[in-house]
């Protein structure tokens, strides 16, 4: 079981969170019209066998979307931050 150290709520079990998937991607600007750019954003996943940047939503807590760095093999979490603060 993962435990995520929510920057607001503190250390909580994974059951309070909803997984939001890969966070290495950046949503293209709304006025981006090239389909291939959107296609990459929506479908392609680096899916590394190592450190993975990913979003988690603290559904049963402060409802913050968090950006987390986690090892996909050991599940060790090395960084947690508000997604809001880590954007471009």
């Amino acid at each position, binding site marked *: *079981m993962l*435990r995520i150290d929510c920057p607001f709520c503190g250390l909580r079990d994974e059951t309070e969170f909803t997984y939001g998937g890969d966070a290495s991607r950046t949503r293209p600007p709304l006025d981006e019209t090239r389909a291939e750019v*959107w*296609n990459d954003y*929506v479908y392609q996943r680096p899916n590394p066998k190592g450190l993975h940047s990913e979003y988690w*939503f603290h*559904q049963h807590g402060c409802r*913050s*979307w968090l950006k987390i760095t986690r090892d996909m093999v050991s599940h060790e979490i090395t960084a947690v931050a*508000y997604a809001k603060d880590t954007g471009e």
Partner: protein
Amino acid sequence: MSTDRQKLRIGGGLVDRGKPVTFRFDGRVLKGFAGDTLASALLANGRHLVGRSFKYHRPRGIFAAGVEEPNALVELGAEDRLTPNVQATAQELYEGLQAKSQNRWPSLRFDLMAVNNLFSRFLTAGFYYKTFMWPAGAWEFYEKFIRRAAGMGKGTHLPDPDTYEHVHDHADIAVVGSGPAGLSAALTAAEAGKDVLLIEQDFELGGTLLYEAGEIAGQANADWRRQTIARINGEPKIRVLTRTTAFGYYENNILGCVERVQDHVLTPDPHVPRQRLRHVRAEKVILATGAFERPFVFGNNDLPGILLSSAAEAYVNRYAVLPGEKMVLYTNQESGYRVAASLLERGIRLAAIIDARSPVPTRHHHFAREAGIPLYPAHEVAEAKGGLHLKGLVIRKIGDGLEPRDIRLDCDTLIQSAGWAPVLHLQSQRGIKPVYHAALDSYLPGKCADGQHACAGAAAGYPTSEDAAVHGHKVARYLIGAAKTAPRLYAPKDAPPPSPAPVPLTRAKCFVDLQHDVTRSDIEQGVREGFRSPEHIKRYTTQGMAADQGKTGNINTLKILSQVQDKEQSGVGTTTFRPPYTPLTIGAVAGRSIAGELRPTRLSPFHDCHVRAGAEFITAGDWLRPWYYPGPGEDVTAAYIREAGEVRSGVGMVDVSTLGKIDIQGPDAAEFLNRVYVNGWKTLPVGKARYGLMLRDDGMVMDDGTTWRLGEHHYFMTTTTTGAGAVMRHLEYLLQIDWPELKVHLTSVSDEWGGVAIAGPRSRAVLGSSFPGVDVSTEAIPHMGVLEFDHEGLPVRICRLSFSGELAFEVYTRAGFAGNLWDLLTEGGKPHDLRLYGSEALGALRIEKGHVAGPELDGRTTADDLGLGGMQSTKKAYVGSVLKNREGLIRNDRRQLAGLKPVEGDTPLKAGMLLFEGDGITPKGHGIGHVTSVTYSPELKRHIALALLAEGRERVGTLIRAVDNGGATVIDVKVCSPHFIDPEGERLHA
């Protein structure tokens, strides 16, 4: 028939002679004492034969005295409390206990299935894979017999009457195991001010101290145990959990434990759960899990009467039971002699000692001589003899070039000790592989890199209770930070090199896995056939896959693999230990979230009103909704047709509280809506609502609903019932991750507001009478107009919008006042004959109107597919606006929303029928579409349906076929507009 005589019971021990216990085994009434296990009580009564083996149905007795027991599995209890495969060696005895032997027919002593034993030479490793293949498809025939013969205990189809719960524990230090290492570790940590949780699977604390002879700090083990437990009981920082097994060790130092709260009573207290699954979150974990004794592999080593020497010591010293009357010890190391001495202390003289070592240390010769026990140095047991019980042994001198000369030894019991295997299951579950130590001929814990846990005592290889206690203390000091370096694992400087495990020459079966009947030759054969990895061998021979998961057999398998392949044992590898450490009750894992509590059941604030009105309910997502309100004698069909008709001709009221509702505020709210909906939102005035459609990023429709503008910067969004949670999460994702620059706040108000829709030609009149003084005229509340007011303390939000196609209003109030609103509307509706309708009629009305819902919004449809393409703005970008134009999503042959009318109007269609061209060719394949929603239209007095149909819009007016029952039912249908009634929306605007 009952007997009070426990013929093998001796004096001493820890059983409570003041509390005699009566129990049954295979129908026989027997006696034991409190403090016994079922196994010790059976032995006390002279019953050694307990079960039959898995494959050959050979007689099996009691082999161990704890959870490593492979043989003594019984069915416990009866009827709905029948529990199969319970280890007699770990089951506490209680008054009224009923147990039965397993896997035998017709009886334990005479088992017809033992005929398998005769054919055993053909039933070796992997035999299934090589036969039973002919004729094709005949496997199921053979399989029936194989399945019946396999398996162990019987289950029941009756539901479990007991309850289970989960508990969450937090501690600074969790100590697993309460032997010498665990007790001293717990005490050390607690005295340093740490919160300690001490977890013990047994019903008594003490582990090996409960039976093992020895001394700690000059005190006898038993005395040290008593004193230490007294200190622990007086230490407020220690919480003790007995009858609790740490079955799993998960990431973040979480131990999964199961506490058997009421498995030692006949009739559980119904207010208390039978078992608890405890999630123990500890900063540091000490694994003081002890070690299992290893058996030897020799011929017929599965006979009842052959057991581990540690088990014999436990039966004698803890349970005061003599395992047999003429006992022989077979060993190759120190601890065997310790047991011999311990037994001697109790006046039990072994009949012989067979020591496989060469040479045997002088001190052991001395011991044997002084004790008057014949010692056979450098001898091996080749074969055991006996039928249902051990009768004797064939032993031989080990040595090169010796002509094997058999010596026959008579005995009824063999106790054996071939070495020790630290219990590393929990550590191994964390992905840390055990490491083979040649000097010890044993596996020791691997390195814990993160310093979160450590193995202590016998689990770290320490052979004596004193060493273990000292090590436990050191490990605790290290983990609490009082010592800098991790205490070492056991590494004796002058360890004698281990003598090789003898390979007996015998034609008899030499078992490695006693429960699964896997023999040494099975493993040899597997290796010959190319199965070399321990994982392969395990799967090919099934070694280690029985209920005991190979606790006493795995290491012997690895040894044999190393011998057979002539490989260093360290290079052989190991199999992976996985949770649970011992079998885990499924009910405990499920806890309380079962049956009606599997998922939450959401109730509308009008729920009581519906119950009073006699509604039948149906689930929609997590919600319970009124399905229909049956009149006398009405079923759902009759009721919904009536209800829908009443709406069309008069007025009806339906609960719409289940819709998701989101409060949206902020200066950028309009911009936000403009980005998430396909249509434009910048121009919506305050006091108006608009229908909106959301796409996913991939261009498929995600959800729809109306959003009302309540103020300059304030909106009220509704979503579908089932989509509510996902939409809210999606919107928060966009705001927090992608567009943090937008000043918009979202709050779910789904539970804050309850609402109903009043629909039908007389709906305005109902509102008029219900809210006298409120102007509900067309001018005051036009189509999609929003009105907010307070009516005698009742906050009301109304929007004129329609799902049914009729003139209709959604009326909301705060949820706690839902009953008041209901009463007000019912009262106001009386003069207008206001009727109630449920979700089935609501569905009928929306189908007539051609509104899409769940069956059409199936995650595979685009706005254009649903006939809503025109809503999509071409002037702005929005979520999904680019990918919706991919070639596959704009093809002409996509399935589009269409209406269907069976040519024979009284022929019902069914949702899920496939559609085919009306060309008379036998329907085959996926067809050109499928029926999504069906209803009888009270308005049109005929059956109608919605469909997703290839080129559906172009096909209007053509005849096609709807097919069901695999082609057996073919119905001619005419394609039409999905808007069956009022396509121009005149009623809506009335």
